């Protein structure tokens, strides 16, 4: 029984059921098909490109950017480069990046490498504290990993959890995303199929609270259909794709 005006639930369901039972033919013309079987792939990944190529091309088309590196140490290096580029205008001194907990980023020695470059990771555990929230909101660069990425559209999936704030990939103007090859799929549908087969789909949704599929930087064309980036979400999104399969 739900909350709300007494009987609303029963009334609504009752009316719907009664009406459905009465009508022989519900639609003017039914398509006469059952629920389609997954995968219902809408947009296949291009056959003539590797998954990485396709992902990178799409992301760049959307005004994002992408680096492909081999592994480990290269990732930290590239991250540093990017952060330096983005913060070049800020006063010199230690730079703080809003981040997931280092363990969640799966890049060995990331914290240490960045520290050598005077960059520290701020991975808040509880953003309900107003002062922590204010501190997080003032940071221009965020780093996250991903739950999955998709080559056909250049999308990534962010799944919140302990050590994985929503804020890190949402508040800062610039978003750095670490994309391990093992989590790069051709399409959403391929990923969903795998989760389904492994019995993990419901759990993932349930435990994440909010699963976010992100495709490129935030944008709007509301003003005279002119494209503007960085309306509320990040203005730049830079992916670093690295091979973690060895």
């Amino acid at each position, binding site marked *: 029984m739900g*909350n709300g005006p007494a009987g609303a639930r029963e009334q609504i369901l009752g009316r719907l059921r009664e009406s459905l039972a009465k009508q022989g033919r519900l639609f003017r013309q039914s*398509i006469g098909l059952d629920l389609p079987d997954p995968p219902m792939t809408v947009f296949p990944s291009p056959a003539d490109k590797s998954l990485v190529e396709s992902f990178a091309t799409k992301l760049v088309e959307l005004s994002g950017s992408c680096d492909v590196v081999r592994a480990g140490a290269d990732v930290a290096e590239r991250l540093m480069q990017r952060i330096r580029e983005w913060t070049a205008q800020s006063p010199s001194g230690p730079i703080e990046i809003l981040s997931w907990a280092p363990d969640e980023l799966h890049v060995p020695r990331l914290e240490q490498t960045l520290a050598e470059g005077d960059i520290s990771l701020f991975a808040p555990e509880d953003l309900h504290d107003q002062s922590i929230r204010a501190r997080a909101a003032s940071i221009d660069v965020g780093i996250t990993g991903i739950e999955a990425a998709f080559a056909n559209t250049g999308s990534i999936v962010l799944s919140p959890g*302990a050590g994985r704030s929503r804020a890190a990939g949402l508040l800062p103007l610039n978003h750095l995303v670490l994309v391990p090859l093992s989590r790069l799929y051709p399409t959403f549908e391929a990923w969903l199929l795998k989760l389904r087969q492994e019995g993990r789909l419901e759990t993932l949704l*349930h435990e994440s609270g*909010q699963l976010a599929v992100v495709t490129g930087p935030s944008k709007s*064309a509301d003003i005279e*259909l002119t494209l503007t980036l960085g309306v509320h979400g990040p203005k730049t999104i830079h992916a670093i794709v690295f091979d973690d399969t060895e």
Partner: protein
Amino acid sequence: MNIDVSAPYQTRVKQALADDNLRTALDRATSRLSETRAQAVAAIDLQRMRDEARAIKEHAIKNLPDLLEELERNLIANGCQVHWAQTADEANEIVTDIARQRDVRRTVKSKSMATEEIHLNRALEDAGIKVVETDLGEYIIQLAGEPPSHITAPVIHKRAEDISELFQRELGMRPTNDPAEMCAAAREQLRSEFLAADMGISGCNFAIAETGTICIITNEGNGRMATSMPPVYVAVMGIEKVVPRVEDAFLLWQAVTRSGTGQDVTVYFSMSSGPRRSGHPDGPEEMHVVLVDSGRSRIMEREYADALLCLRCGACLNSCPVYREIGGHAYGNTAYSGPIGAVVTPLLAEDPTTAKELPFASSLCGVCREVCPVKIDLPRLLLDLRHDLTQLGSSPKYEGAAIRAYSNTVEKPARYNRLSKLARWFSRILPANTEGDLTKLPPPLSAWTRSRVLPRIASRSFRALWRDGRDTRRGSSDNG
């Protein structure tokens, strides 16, 4: 010049047709959106996607009560509180109560046509609670005090200059017509709203029954913000939005984006399955879902279930030659305009005759049906509504009399011939130009001659000519 949405239909249309700025904006926007749609659907197997989308929605509507119960079960299992509202008033009361009980002063809102429909903002504001629209287009019309004029592009009717003027006045922005600067001004203002808000409100594009998940789509990121930053999150959802499986939501999402804005996908697709889990750094402490009927079961009872298939993508608006001429405000005080608006506005209303002109605001050209991702036969629904409205006596009396007289006459050949003779005689005496075309007809036909001439009835009808030639023809066909 603004269109008064509460003025009578003919006044609204006249105002719209006289507004050159509006029509330039509409032209530009709808042709752009049609073009991008064409490109986006050319890249996929469109027919297959439409068939699958249609099959999913048919299944969902056919099984609506069971799916709603399943949705409710799973939302509750996820830690959400579920509320049911039969009417707009009930829905607004539920949301206002949630806000009051938690001492909410300010709310941020992500774009939602359902909340426009039920006038949620007004209800909250009447209760002393501030509502800030965060979708850029919605924010602009909120500042301007206007309703949206398009389902997915709420300020399609405004020029950059109009928006700049507004921002200068309301935000103290420096004078500029640069959209990027205007966006930055809005971003700054709204960022502080997001962080300070006590409650976030969203609509719902799709609700997944099997996992208890509310999905919302945006390009700006305000959806994620509004549903992640404030401590309380309320999702307001039309009951027809429920779908069975996760895969269905992903398919319909892509159907909406390709048809409506010509994108592969929108930038953001947020799938909320409950409040913040323990140990998570952020997320709302509470999540509420309000299941709103507000005329939807009435649509079912009125036997227009087809109208519930709509995904709210806006493709029909972008392709409609009538919408292009008059824009959304001409459809009146409704959240829904264009072809789908002409159908659901009277159907959602308790008294359909309050929107009686809308189903007639169409030449039945059929492009909407071609672009609809779920193959809704909009022209058919418009025709059915025209019939239903006429049965309710909402058409002008003289019209019914004229049509009845015509059908009386025309069902009997002898009467038809007499009518033709009469019409011929009549057309001879009406004012004509030198070419013999009629230039002035009595009302209501004067509406034709205001801008067009009309040929006279021919001195010899086809059947007269046929009869004349009959004997000759019979002779010639025998001889070859």
